[in-house]
């Protein structure tokens, strides 16, 4: 660690970003541990941990910018990937939770024979009796 090479302001900036990122990571995991229901538990990791990892990645970017004088793009790649995938995995987890919990009294009926979280091929089929494609008739 070459702290002497860092300008004072850069060192302060990296330190503040590292501390903020660590704080958000602890808050996210603590929320995952102590919140009562699954839908509430989903908030902690998907928001706070993404902020926390984003802070640590920006701190790492600034650290290598100040120590070695080069702008590294790897961190931006990881940040971009995490920001793209965190909503998708949260959505999938919420769907799996709705599918498994079967909250029939808490969500309105779907009006279809299947529940909220499963794909119904019959509802979205434009050609249910295979009149357009007789070769694929059931």
């Amino acid at each position: 660690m070459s702290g002497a090479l860092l300008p004072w302001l850069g060192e302060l900036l990296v330190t503040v970003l590292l501390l903020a990122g660590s704080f958000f990571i602890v808050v996210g995991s603590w929320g995952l541990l102590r919140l009562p229901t699954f839908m509430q538990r989903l908030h902690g990791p998907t928001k706070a941990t993404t902020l926390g990892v984003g802070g640590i990645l920006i701190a790492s970017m600034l650290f290598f910018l100040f120590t070695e004088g080069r702008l590294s793009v790897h961190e931006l790649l990881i940040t971009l990937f995490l920001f793209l995938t965190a909503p998708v995995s949260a959505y999938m987890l919420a769907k799996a939770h709705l599918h498994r919990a079967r909250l029939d009294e808490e969500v309105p009926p779907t009006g279809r024979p299947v529940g909220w979280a499963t794909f119904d091929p019959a509802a979205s089929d434009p050609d249910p009796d295979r009149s357009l494609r007789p070769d694929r008739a059931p």
Partner: protein
Amino acid sequence: MIEFAVAVGFAAVGLGTIFCLIRLALGPDAVDRALALDTLVVNAVALIMLLGIAQATAIHFEAALLIAMLGFVGTVAFCKFMLRGDVIE
């Protein structure tokens, strides 16, 4: 100053990992365990980035990126299995 912040970061991410492990052990449903594993992966990425800052090397970024990608694919595969009973139909 940065040494102090990195030490605090290691402690904080370790604490978060312990919280995730407790939720992984408690988790009333399999979805909770999948969420705990997803959070564990994100904590592992943060831990690897902190290690890269502490050692002032840039060789850990590929490992962090790979772990992030594998964690996302794993979470989606878990959810797909819970939703459909199969991963690839």
